[in-house]
């Protein structure tokens, strides 16, 4: 069954606007349009419809643009602030861990020196000293990053407890 050249041309007209058509298709279409007024009108109105889409003027309110730019500035500043707080909290944590480790070493040595004067084995006293004196410190230093996020609102108590 032969394709109706008229129908084919109508399809080709829209296709040429929506997507690309091949050189051969373009030649066939041009030849048909030279002879067919109905298709020429179809092509004209299709082109006018496309052109008409560009004939609307939606005015941008300059105040709106200014508001958006301000919002962006505030939002970025908030990100930076949050990032800095997080960094500070991690540095504090690192410092606390170092101090805890140093405190552990001091407590260990001190307990070793003290053991002859109390009725405990040296090793037992040293372990007890580390556990009693240093464990709370270690626990507190681990809480530093979490506390920072809680106070910044990045982490809810429900998320923490779950």
């Amino acid at each position, binding site marked *: 069954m032969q394709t109706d050249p008229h129908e084919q041309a109508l399809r080709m007209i*829209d296709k040429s*606007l*929506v*997507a690309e058509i091949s050189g051969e298709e373009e030649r066939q279409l041009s030849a048909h349009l030279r002879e067919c007024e109905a298709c020429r*009108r*179809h092509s004209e*109105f*299709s082109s*006018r*419809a*496309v*052109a*008409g*889409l*560009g*004939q*609307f*003027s*939606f*005015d*941008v*309110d300059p105040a*709106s*643009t200014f*508001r*958006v*730019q301000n*919002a*962006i*500035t505030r*939002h*970025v500043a908030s*990100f*930076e602030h949050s990032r800095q707080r997080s960094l500070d909290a991690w540095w504090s944590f690192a410092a606390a861990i170092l101090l805890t480790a140093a405190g552990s070493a001091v407590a260990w040595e001190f307990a070793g020196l003290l053991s002859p004067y109390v009725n405990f084995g040296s090793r037992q006293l040293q372990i007890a000293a580390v556990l009693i004196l240093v464990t709370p410190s270690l626990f507190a230093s681990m809480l530093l990053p979490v506390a920072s996020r809680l106070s910044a609102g990045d982490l809810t108590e429900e998320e923490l407890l779950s």
Partner: protein
Amino acid sequence: MILPATADTDTQRIATGLRQRNVALLHELVELYQHRLLRYLIYFLGRRDHVDDLIQETWLRVIERGSHYDGRSRFEPWLFTIARNLAMDHVRKHKMFSLASTARETENEASPIQLVSSASSPFELAARTQDAQRIAASLQALEPACREALLLRFQEELSLHEIAAIVSAPITTVSSRIYRGLETLRKQLEGASHAN
């Protein structure tokens, strides 16, 4: 889509700037794209109100997800995808919809939903020529999916592939929407021409 060298540099500059949350670049992008975002959202929603809020939300989302843009493709499709998703959320949240357009779509396609509004048509208010005035009413009544596709193809000059990625639909569906929209507008112009 393979970008030309200069465009490639621009998109890489945008990608780098977004990763670094460069405020100057973001302000520049706002100046460049404000009108196009406005026009896109009006076409998508079929109304003017709430569009300014959606534009602002779009840019804030761009900041939050800036690291997701890799600069290997054009910036516009990525930006319009963000705007579209926010607009869809807005419509769902405000529960302003009609089901008229869904019958012709497949189940898996994410089609926008027509807003019901009694406000003046933004197209009638914005028409600057006689042809624009003639097609304004048809644009307003058109399925949002067709309206959106017409804008992205003929005003934003995106490829069918890019449009399909934005609207999460196959290329054949996008083409179909464009043809339907074009037919509606063409008939409106032909009718007006016969009347004269």
